[in-house]
């Protein structure tokens, strides 16, 4: 009977623990929530500065902003531009930051800041429709030159990628033939490449990249060539024909739109500056959680006030685990099963030494007053009620006296749960009358010892971090507590209690 009925229990507990741990690992991997506190991650803060001169007209400034740049993910975006209306507009071609203002004159500066973190994953860009090559029309003699160069490149290639590489190589100055010299002028080189590739039936476009270097200002955008190979857009360096996005290169603009359009302003220009920051990994995960679908599993989206309440609440299971362990495995006697946890919670807020002093003095004064109450022969409920009021008086008195004497710590006394303290005093006092001082000392110091242990565990930064950021770990605690409920072995204190039995062995 025993063995059969307990197997499902153990399986359930194992499942509970397994579920807790695997959920935590999954969220660590998926959301990047760090296991330890204080872990740092590099973040690139890129600032685009738009300058133009207003011409006393309504202004609409529109800046192309990154949309899922390969190798990076965006964690925050914000604009600083006093007096301007700002919004981020998404259309089929990409995302644009738009500033607007009714009446603008004189030099204007607009800022757009975004934070990027390097990621390994490369999410394929969603595409509204399959890109098609544009129809190109060339006039003679260019048409013939283009045809010949393309024929030459096609002959030496097999795929859109190799075709692109060949074409770039043919267009280089050192391999230039008569045909290419006819076509290439310094300014139109990249656009010419794009046009020729489109002509050859390969969808192509330009992109602008930003080389990320720490603390650089006025960084220029570098042009890149992108072709569509029937599956995804591939990036090429238009000079070296190197394929792929170099490390630390952020593709700011992909697609055919312009980088910056300003309506109602002259002399518009955009410049970039950047900074490498380190951000706590946790903060990063929090920010990402908002955009990630998994965010609903965590507390990050709750209002801050509720969050801090949960921070406290989620520590309680740890305290309960300590109490369970201390009582069932060690065998320490406490007054009131979970009184130590509540005291420990108060200690977390008051810190240990001031908390201990405050707690002991409240209980000591309370016990003295309770001595008088017991001589009044009151009914239980009114005695407890009177005690609660007295405890409040005592804490208020201690706070005020402490404050007047210049100890701010006196104020922390208010963190103690008044009703619990009143009951503790009542119980201690009855214990005193019935079992004597010794038992009061044993249970009192047992309670305090357990409370201090619980406090030490609960106040560890790691404990707070893990319980709040991985709430599923509470399933593991629950599993351990359930397992402990099945512990039928000897308590540590019993080994001492039963020691006289040695004689009979």
């Amino acid at each position, binding site marked *: 009977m025993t063995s059969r009925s307990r197997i499902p229990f153990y399986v359930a507990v194992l499942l509970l623990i397994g579920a807790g741990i695997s959920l935590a690992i999954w969220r660590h991997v998926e959301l990047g929530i760090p296991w330890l506190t204080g872990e740092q991650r590099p973040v690139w803060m890129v600032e685009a500065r738009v300058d133009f001169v207003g011409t006393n007209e309504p202004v609409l400034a529109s800046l192309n902003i990154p949309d899922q740049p390969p190798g990076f993910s965006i964690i925050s975006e914000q604009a600083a531009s006093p007096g301007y209306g700002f919004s981020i507009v998404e259309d089929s071609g990409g995302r644009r930051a738009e500033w607007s203002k009714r009446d603008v004159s004189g030099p204007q500066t607009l800022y757009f800041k975004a934070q990027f973190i390097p990621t390994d994953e490369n999410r394929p860009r969603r595409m509204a429709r399959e890109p098609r090559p544009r129809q190109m029309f060339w006039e003679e003699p260019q048409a013939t030159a283009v045809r010949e160069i393309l024929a030459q490149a096609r002959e030496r290639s097999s795929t859109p990628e190799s075709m692109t590489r060949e074409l770039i190589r043919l267009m280089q100055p050192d391999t230039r033939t008569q045909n290419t010299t006819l076509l290439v002028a310094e300014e139109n080189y990249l656009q010419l490449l794009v046009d020729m590739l489109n002509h050859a039936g390969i969808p192509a476009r330009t992109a602008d990249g930003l080389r990320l270097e720490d603390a650089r200002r006025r960084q220029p955008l570098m042009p890149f060539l992108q072709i569509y190979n029937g599956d995804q857009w591939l990036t090429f360096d238009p000079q070296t024909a190197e394929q792929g996005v170099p490390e630390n290169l952020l593709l700011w603009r992909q697609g055919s739109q312009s980088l910056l359009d300003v309506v109602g302003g002259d002399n518009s220009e955009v410049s970039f500056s950047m900074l490498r920051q380190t951000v706590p990994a946790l903060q990063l995960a929090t920010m990402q959680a908002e955009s990630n679908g998994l965010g609903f599993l965590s507390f990050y989206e709750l209002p801050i006030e509720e969050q801090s309440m949960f921070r406290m609440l989620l520590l309680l299971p740890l305290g309960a685990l300590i109490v369970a362990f201390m009582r069932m495995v060690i065998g320490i006697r406490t007054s009131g099963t979970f009184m130590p946890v509540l005291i420990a919670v108060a200690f977390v807020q008051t810190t240990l030494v001031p908390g201990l002093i405050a707690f002991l003095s409240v209980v000591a004064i309370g016990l003295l007053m309770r001595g008088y109450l017991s001589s009044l*022969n009151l009914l239980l409920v009114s005695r407890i009620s009177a005690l609660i009021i007295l405890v409040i008086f005592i804490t208020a008195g201690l706070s005020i006296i402490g404050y007047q004497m210049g100890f701010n710590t006196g104020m922390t006394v208010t963190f103690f749960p008044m009703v619990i303290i009143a009951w503790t005093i009542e119980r201690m006092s009855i214990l005193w009358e019935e079992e004597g001082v010794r038992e009061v000392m044993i249970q009192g110091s047992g309670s305090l010892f357990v409370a201090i242990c619980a406090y030490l565990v609960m106040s560890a930064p790691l404990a707070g971090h893990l319980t709040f950021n991985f709430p599923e770990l509470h399933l593991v605690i629950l599993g351990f507590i359930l397992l402990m409920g099945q512990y039928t072995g*000897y308590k540590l204190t019993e080994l*001492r209690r039963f020691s006289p039995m040695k004689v009979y062995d």
Partner: protein
Amino acid sequence: MEWISPRRLKRLGMLNMNRRNVDYIARYNERSSYPLVDNKLKTKLVVAEYGVKTPRLLQVVREQHEISHFREMAEDLEGFAIKPAKGSGGKGITVITGRDGDEYIKASGARVDAAYLERHLTNILAGLYSLAGTPDVAIVENLVQSDPDLARYSHQGVPDIRIVVFQGYPVMAMLRLATTASDGKANLHQGAVGVGLDIGTGRSLNAVQFNRPITLHPDTGLALENIEIAAWDEMLEMAARCYEATGLGYMGVDLVVDANEGPLLLELNARPGLAIQMANGCGLLPRLRNIEGLKRPHFSPGERANYAMETFGKL
């Protein structure tokens, strides 16, 4: 600090707190039966149907206004005991052993007036001594006239006999003697002396106080080694019968021997302590396993008591 290794304890078959709670109390004691033992009034009524005698019930005080009747009732009584029905561990029990004019003499010799007893009744009704602080009922019982043979061993208070009954079989017994340290109470953790009793004969085995072996009673100075309980088989059968009355598979039965009425049931306990093992110098586990391993349990209390005497007796 002296320690004993868990392996040695296991070899001795010592039952420990966690195992008692999980493997015995939780498994064999129906929660619904607890009120029967946690409430002394209910215990009295239910065991009476099974022919187990308890001290005579003089009055039940259920409401505050009934306290006024107490004085009339107590007017011509010599000795009585006031108990909270739901009290535990002997809390709130006041024993009056005699009268001196208008005053009552407590077991400790202190004199108190009727107003004191009425206040005590009020406290009991308010639940001061009850298990969860819930409102309670006070019962007034006839005073037990302890058998002088046994009473001389005890300092104040009435010596009582605790028998652990498992599935209706009395498995272990001890005699509890009050001391000055225990303030006239028979609770071992308060300092009463526990004398292990041989289940087979009712003779004393060894004695402990505060978990330490002793040979003489600390107050009376009497040797504790040759005590023999009279009418032992009758007591064991009485204890066994309580199983039918309550249905509790694992319980402690507290009996006293009254000089006039013989063995009486004082109270039942659904969570009997572990100190009985130290008084007996042996563990409960082998005996409990013996009972658990019985293929055909005995049906009558008498048979079970006999089986226990034969099997667990020390010879």
